[in-house]
């Protein structure tokens, strides 16, 4: 096959497929039931802040520089996806924590970085929104009980729809083994070993 045609096929097929996948990800029944950030709000001193403003402050104060959100970011601090829940679903507690920080554990008081109570409330609204996202079950709370006992989940079977992973694993592993053997044999044939 012509080299250019091969490359074009490699580029165009997945690129064209990405369009419906992207649309399905947001605009159809496939899409997860995520909340509308404009409707997730936090009240502070009689003013209402929504998660859209919160997303901007979250970016501005570089929370992702130490923490992760939906698992993406830095691994210096804990994940913030469920921070709202961990703070007892209280936005006052959450914004208070942000402003004072945890200096001994490495979190600077954000009020030293220019964060005022309004911005803290905005960021709390964003974290409230992040907590409501449908992230396909991530992060887990631990699949075993804390005391080491076996949890209550029943065993399941390997479904036919999951076997592709087994097949891929076998192919991947054996292609490498095969490559090594082939390289070895050819070298031996040429008397270089």
């Amino acid at each position, binding site marked *: 096959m012509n080299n*250019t045609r091969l490359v074009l096929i490699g580029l165009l097929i997945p690129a064209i497929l990405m369009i419906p996948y992207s649309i*399905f990800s947001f605009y159809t029944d496939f899409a997860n039931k995520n909340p509308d950030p404009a409707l997730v709000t936090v009240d502070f001193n009689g003013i209402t802040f929504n998660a859209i403003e919160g997303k901007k402050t979250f*970016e*501005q104060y570089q929370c992702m520089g130490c923490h*992760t959100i939906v698992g993406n970011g830095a691994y210096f601090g804990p994940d913030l996806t469920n921070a709202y829940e961990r703070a007892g679903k209280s936005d006052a507690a959450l914004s208070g924590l942000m402003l004072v920080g945890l200096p001994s554990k490495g979190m600077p008081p954000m009020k030293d970085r220019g964060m005022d109570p309004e911005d803290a409330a905005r960021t709390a609204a964003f974290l409230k929104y992040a907590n409501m996202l449908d992230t396909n079950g991530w*992060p887990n709370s631990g699949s075993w009980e804390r005391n080491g006992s076996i949890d209550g989940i029943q065993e399941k079977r390997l479904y036919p729809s999951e076997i592709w992973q087994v097949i891929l694993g076998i192919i991947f592993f054996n292609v490498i083994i095969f490559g090594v053997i082939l390289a070895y044999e050819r070298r031996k044939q040429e008397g270089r070993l």
Partner: protein
Amino acid sequence: MNEYPSRAKTRKYFLAAVLLFVLQLILGIFLSIEFMFRGEYLFSIPFDIYKSLHLNVMVLWLLLGFIGGLYYLLPPEVGRDIKYPRLIDFQFWFLMIAGIGIIISELFFTGRNWWLVEGREYLEAGRAWDILLTLGLLTVVFNVGMTIRERKKEMSSPILVLAMGAVGSILMYVPGEIWFNSLVAAEYFRWWVVHYWVEATFELIAAGAIALILLSITDVRREIIEKYLAIEVALILLTGIIGQGHHYYWIGTPQFWLFLGGLFSALEPVPLFLMVWSAYKDLKENSKPIPNNIALYMIIAASLGNLFGAGVWGFIHTLPQINFFTHGTQITASHAHFATPGTYLFLVLGMAYIAVPELSGMMNFHQFRAKTGLWLLVIGFLNMITALVIAGVVQVYLQRLQGVSFMEVQNILLPFYGWRTIAGLITLAGALLITYDFIILYHKRKLEE
């Protein structure tokens, strides 16, 4: 060499790239120290600023290295000089000034101004810098496009792949700059920048550059190298574009990404293996002596780093069942510290070791320093990766499976962070040796002139 005078201008790109890499390493060592002494700020700068600089400096030197490499390798392949040679200087100083601007914004304006610091991983540079950088980099696209349009001979496929990769990386910077209200959409398109860089366009640059360098230093037939390159590129794109799905498991996107991402990203190591395999075959067939041994070493390191760092280390945590537990742990950090330097650092160094000695007119330079530096880099990075992967396994077991609290796990991981710091120091020693070598190579020409 005098045929293409603009090539001499690319020398400073490589030197700047290597110097910025040293800066990135120093920042990385600061970060690892802050990991061990929580609450202590080195030079009263907190973790997040070092972290964002660590990433942004990397993006900057990668761009410098790739643009320099493209400008260096393009003229002989199109049979003419770069169309606007003065743009090469302009773009270099533009990138330098933008880089200094980003560093100053990070240091003094984090949290003060969203337009100057945006704080999204890899895109920490504020919106103002993003737009400025994109506009500046589009002039590279323009310059390369005009040069290719007025070519004097038929383009070979490696340089086309390289140019496609460089232009694609610059264009892929754009999706990250669109504002979305929803975190899901913002993360969705942020990964277009990051993933399509490292798993599509940068891979194209790697494949193209490795092929070009092999063409220039060996006597293997062009058709063989080009045939392999076409298969590699087709497979990189076929797996990489939808392989994007492995970033869409847990960010609030539908479950069909678990299947798509798992399927395609599990296939991603195949083209990387092919890259190593084809380089191996080419070198075996080669009968021409290779005087510039160090460039060859760097290219071999890059293709092996790509296979093991991106391919194997990526594969071990790419399937959704595994990624459910490893997502957001030190396993990811280990993968990133293997794949990025393993591939792109050695690629940029390889291009630099071809370009700088030739442009300085010293083809018979002493290679002992560079080889020692390379081995120090390899040893340093392998230590770093091993420390991080053990830390990652411990973290996954304790935090994700046993439910031990975050802080408790971090305390347990401290020895591995110490190991990582020592590894960083070894790497720094190698990087300083290579920088010293480059400064000497760079300086020799100045004396002759």
